[in-house]
């Protein structure tokens, strides 16, 4: 199969289609995912081709969606749930944390819940309240779940399929402001470029400082690397891809190489992913560090009204400022 240029949104759509074709037990569930194809059109055309029993327009109740998905999974199905926006996952928090994450353990392995929960996340689209959040850390903190985030069309296409074929529950974070970014996707399953679901990837080589990012901030970090290069500073950029488990082997290797690390995410920094990553690095790479691990992220306030988001979100300037601070040590 040849490579195709497609958007990140189309990558997920094509990945869902491939998974549904491969396994009749794969179901899509969510609000408006049928005729409309979801508010972001990620499931566009799938109900027409797979029918209403496999692409299910559910009642508007998130706990109900995840709770019934658990029942369907117990019956042998592989539900892929769409949460319409990040900020609307909280009604399902109880089902995810109390049931989805724990069922395999509490049944001592007798039950498997191969459920994927897709969450369009992050800001930068000028949306109203509750439509721009980054709540991945809540779920990364929860044992029993796997948490991943894609950042480009190729990962979108392959990672969604890998998430669906995982027998564990997977929280699948989609950077909504990158939905329309285009890139080449190699559709050949033998392609050497396909990584495991939980592998991090060095997306830009560099020698002086390592930027660790995931989801929407990967692109911001790549832009920062380009800008820094013009000033003669060499930044390495790593797309973490998996937030739980973290690919600590790759993290250790790259940070031991540069001796300087900055974690960049949209979520508030206090007890965000950056906290865990910084703690890990200081423990495992202590003698290699030339500077403290820095974090650039959302401020520790509720996501502000959209007129403030340019300043709230970690942009080029804040990343480059952190790079300067790191290099000053």
């Amino acid at each position, binding site marked *: 199969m040849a490579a195709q240029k497609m958007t990140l949104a189309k990558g997920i759509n094509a990945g869902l289609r491939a998974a549904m074709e491969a396994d009749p037990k794969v179901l899509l569930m969510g609000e408006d995912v049928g005729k409309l194809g979801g508010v972001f059109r990620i499931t566009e055309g799938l109900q027409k081709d797979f029918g209403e029993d496999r692409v299910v327009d559910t*009642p508007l109740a998130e*706990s109900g969606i995840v709770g019934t998905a658990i*029942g369907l999974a*117990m019956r042998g199905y592989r539900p892929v749930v769409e949460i319409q926006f990040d900020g609307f996952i909280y009604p399902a928090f109880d089902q995810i944390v109390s049931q989805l994450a724990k069922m395999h353990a509490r049944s001592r392995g007798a039950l498997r819940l191969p459920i994927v929960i897709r969450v369009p996340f992050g800001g930068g689209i000028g949306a109203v309240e509750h439509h721009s959040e980054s709540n991945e850390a809540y779920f990364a903190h929860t044992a029993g779940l796997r948490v991943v985030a894609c950042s480009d069309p190729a990962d979108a296409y392959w990672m969604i399929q890998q998430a669906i074929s995982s*027998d564990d529950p997977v929280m699948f974070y989609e950077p909504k402001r990158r939905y329309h970014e285009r890139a080449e996707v190699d559709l050949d399953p033998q392609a050497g470029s396909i990584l495991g679901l939980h592998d991090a990837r060095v997306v830009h080589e560099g020698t002086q400082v390592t930027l660790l990012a995931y989801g929407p901030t990967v692109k911001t970090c790549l832009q920062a690397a380009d800008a820094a290069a013009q000033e003669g500073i060499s930044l390495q950029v790593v797309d973490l891809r998996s937030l739980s488990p973290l690919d600590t082997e790759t993290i250790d290797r790259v940070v031991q190489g540069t001796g300087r690390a900055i974690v960049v995410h949209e979520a508030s920094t206090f007890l965000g992913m950056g906290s865990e990553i910084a703690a890990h690095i200081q423990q495992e790479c202590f003698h290699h560090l030339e500077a403290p691990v820095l974090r650039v992220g959302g401020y520790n306030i509720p996501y502000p009204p959209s007129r403030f988001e340019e300043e709230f979100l970690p942009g080029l300037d804040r990343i480059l400022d952190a790079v300067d601070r790191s290099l000053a040590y």
Partner: protein
Amino acid sequence: MTEIRDVAVHHETVVPQAQQDITDGGPDMVQFVDGEGTRLERTAANTPYAEIVEALTPEDGRSMYRDLVLVRRLDAEGHALQRQGELGLWPSLLGQEAAQVGAGRAMRAQDFAFPGYREHGVAWCRGIEPEQLLALFRGVDNGGWSPSELNYHLYTIVIGNQMLHATGYAMGMQRDGVVGTGDEDRDAAVMAFTGDGGTAQGDFNESLVFAGVANAPLVIFVQNNQWAISEPNYKQFRVPPYQRAQGFGFPGIRVDGNDVLAVYAVTKAALDNARAGQGPTLIEAFTYRLGAHTTSDDPTKYRSAAEVDIWREKDPIKRMRGFLSQKGYADDAFYESVDREADELAVRVRTACQNMPEPSQERMFDEIYVDPHPVVEREKAQFMEYQAGFETQEAR
């Protein structure tokens, strides 16, 4: 301001639940035997189920009685084991035996049940070994059995969560083509159990929405035992649960939860409908929790002894025994043999509890994920190494 006063006046026209008699289920309640076990005449409420009861044989009646007695003894043993420090907690089903045995016996092997945490009687009917029930309350396991073996899900402690799992499972049965085919041995349905307090949960109400919309083969079985720990019905709802079903688009039935024949008949009818593809039913079994909420509770703080006494008179076992005796279906020799069996069961449960092996500590790291997980594996290895350190010290 006038508008607000109008609303207040309107509300006063609704009879507050607090003023209703919680010992009387009212005329809608399906009942077949009275407090003494006398078979009642047909009423508007029980007529639709009369044929099911009439089809029961004396042997069925004896077998139901046996279940009631054995389940009560199993429960008493659980309570005693907690008091002796063998279990951390025990939620007693005392008083609810008929509701659980009636419902459990109405199920077929291919049906699937989702219990709360008090459904020891349903578990018994599904064939769960009594000692398997103890593991959770002894703290050696969060489950205790494999749900798919006997189509009985693990106990769910977060009130209401299981209602949605049951609904989803029923939606899966629809997709599997085991609903409404007319094949008695294949068509299947799901039962979801919760309590009166559980009906206030969002998940409970969402399950009614989802089941109604999907027309899922689901029987929602609410054991209204009048209390949610210390809170009475009138603090949970303004309209009794069985009346709520209509608003979700399917029938709701109140049944005398202390009348095992009535519970069996109503549940069987609801399951038959569900298997036939006619959608959900909500059953409210009107019953009473004679004991404390759990072994940690002190009900004297919130309810009167007089209320408990009234309900003691409605004892489900006494009623079934009265029925069997009046009909001449059982004699003293039978009752004595059941009591002996109960004694044997008690010994078996006690011995199994005391002999339950202590779990190896590293087991806590097992089966967290299906696929290998580096964090769990690393911590398990570290833990075992740490433990081994003590062992070598001891060996010295």
